[in-house]
């Protein structure tokens, strides 16, 4: 009862935040030194044609009215049309987001499992050789640009060993072959997993270490609990519960987590779509993605808080008070 009240309150806080963000973004794009008309008209068009084009897209109306119309449409689930290709943005998003999710979800999940195993293991062996190795690998992983690693993987697996196709999600003509999909899937999946795991591992390791320094661990030791028992019965649980909140924070990645990687591998997700839109200043698309990602960040934070409230008995109790 009170938990739902809490969620309701949080949602109410979220709405003005979203409105402000959408307004700022719209404003920013409006300030751009050249607008979308420049990219679809040619200098030899007559002034009347240009004016007509402007009127067609509503670009001749005052700023605030353009914004209001656009917002109203969004509320109806209509993100408008790309001014460059004239396609419906909603349709485009509906085909591209699932492609991105197909890539991100398995990579993030793999990275998470890897991080939990390595992080707990490193934490349990603090200061020993294995811990230093894991920590060292994470430090290098954090310092490594993902796109560079992608290029390395492409060169080695794609060109040199020639095992995997280097671009796209399907070979043309075999769109329904799952094997073909997997062959295309492997490299970007691998690159993203490597990109995600170092941070997560560090997180797990440091929360393991902070749990280890808690008094209750000392108490358990004094009661003769073995290290193994302390880890399986107490620490792993206390470390893993907060990780659930990380999943909420990772929500926006489902859309924008792989922009560069997707465009390197020509994966037909949000990444290439967004980048080509920014290059041609296709503002309805930029707006849509910006708003979408900001919404997901905010909802992700909300989800994270709610999950935490459900999972942690200390907060659970306070919420019902």
């Amino acid at each position, binding site marked *: 009862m009170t938990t739902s009240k809490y969620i309701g309150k949080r949602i109410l806080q979220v709405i003005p935040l979203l409105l402000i963000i959408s307004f700022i973004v719209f404003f920013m794009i409006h300030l751009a030194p050249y607008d979308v008309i420049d990219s679809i008209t040619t200098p030899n068009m007559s002034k009347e044609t240009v004016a007509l084009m402007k009127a067609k897209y509503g670009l001749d109306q005052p700023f605030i009215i353009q914004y209001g119309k656009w917002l109203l449409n969004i509320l109806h689930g209509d993100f408008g049309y790309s001014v460059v290709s004239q396609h419906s943005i909603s349709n485009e998003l509906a085909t591209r987001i699932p492609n991105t999710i197909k890539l991100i979800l398995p990579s993030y999940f793999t990275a998470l499992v890897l991080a939990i195993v390595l992080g707990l293991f490193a934490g349990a062996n603090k200061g020993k050789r294995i811990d230093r190795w894991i920590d060292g690998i994470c430090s290098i992983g954090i310092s490594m640009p993902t796109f560079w690693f992608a290029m390395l993987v492409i060169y080695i697996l794609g060109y040199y060993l020639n095992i995997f196709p280097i671009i796209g999600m399907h070979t043309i003509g075999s769109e329904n072959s799952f094997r073909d999909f997997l062959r295309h899937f492997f490299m970007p999946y691998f690159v993203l997993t490597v990109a995600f795991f170092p941070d997560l591992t560090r997180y797990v390791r440091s929360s393991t270490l902070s749990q280890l320094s808690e008094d209750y661990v000392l108490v*358990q030791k004094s009661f*003769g609990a073995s290290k193994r028992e302390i880890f399986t019965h107490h620490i792993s649980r206390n470390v893993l519960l907060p990780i659930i909140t990380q999943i909420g924070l990772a929500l926006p990645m489902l859309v924008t987590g792989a922009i560069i990687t997707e465009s390197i591998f020509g994966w037909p997700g949000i990444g290439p779509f967004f980048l080509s839109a920014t290059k041609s200043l296709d503002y309805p698309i930029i707006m849509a993605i910006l708003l979408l990602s900001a919404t997901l960040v905010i909802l992700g934070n909300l989800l994270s808080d709610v999950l935490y409230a459900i999972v942690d008995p200390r907060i659970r109790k306070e919420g019902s008070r």
Partner: protein
Amino acid sequence: MTKQPILELKELNVALLEDKIQQTEIIKNIDIKIPKGEIVGIVGESGSGKSMTMRAIMDILPENAQRNFSTFTFEGEPVSFAKASKRLPISMIFQDPMTSLNPLRKIGYHLIEVIRRQQKLSKKAAKKLAIQELEKVGLTNPEKRMTQYPHELSGGMRQRVMIAMALLVKPKLLIADEPTTALDVTIQAQILTLIQKLQKEEDLTVVLVTHDFGIVAGMCQSVKVMYQGEIVEEGTTDEIFYQSQHPYTKELLKAVPTVEKGQRLYAIQHQLETGEPLTAAQKEFRQLSETHRVQVAKERRA
């Protein structure tokens, strides 16, 4: 000495390795003898090595600590801390009951885990035993407590849970490391009375670590005074209170808050005597009675 000591430890040394180069000695060559069936007080200011001595006995020193001793006997049997050796029937309760329990595990889980580690019991039987124990330490409504999380209990209740946990391992020696420091004054008295009562009922030996001479006077039969990693004086409570010899003990006794009006609280002066601290070779014990001995500077023999 008529009574056989329950625990005897000789030449205990503990050092903390700060890094590869430096190490700090925190317990310096102390001998400890705990007489059976008594409540023994260990007194000293914070940092004097009281807790570390207890942790050395429990084998729960921090990882960067090094410990050695010449002999360690429990009820006359030599003790080794080899991996396969049996656990000693000693349990310990800690200063802060707020953090002693895993906040994400229920009270029942903690108790049942302790029971089932020692005895082959079904979950149901273990639960019954746990509830009985909670009743024994004076918790009301024990069935409900079993399903509660630590944060739902008050500090005093949690300390009772800790005592119940400690008793469930059927200890012969109970070490209470400042068990009431983190509690309200009224709760303090309740917990101390509980410890006293249980000591009689369960035929326990209790080591009570405290910095409060008031508590010692009310509960303990004998006292050991620790200062900078050493035991500087030990004896029966009366001997320590009325015939204290070591300057540090005297200072500590003066620092006991009295109710007299207008008297300033006495702050302990760290420099006992002017000049350099004595090295180990310059100190020795002087036996004043069968139970009372004090550390003194070796007399210089010309």
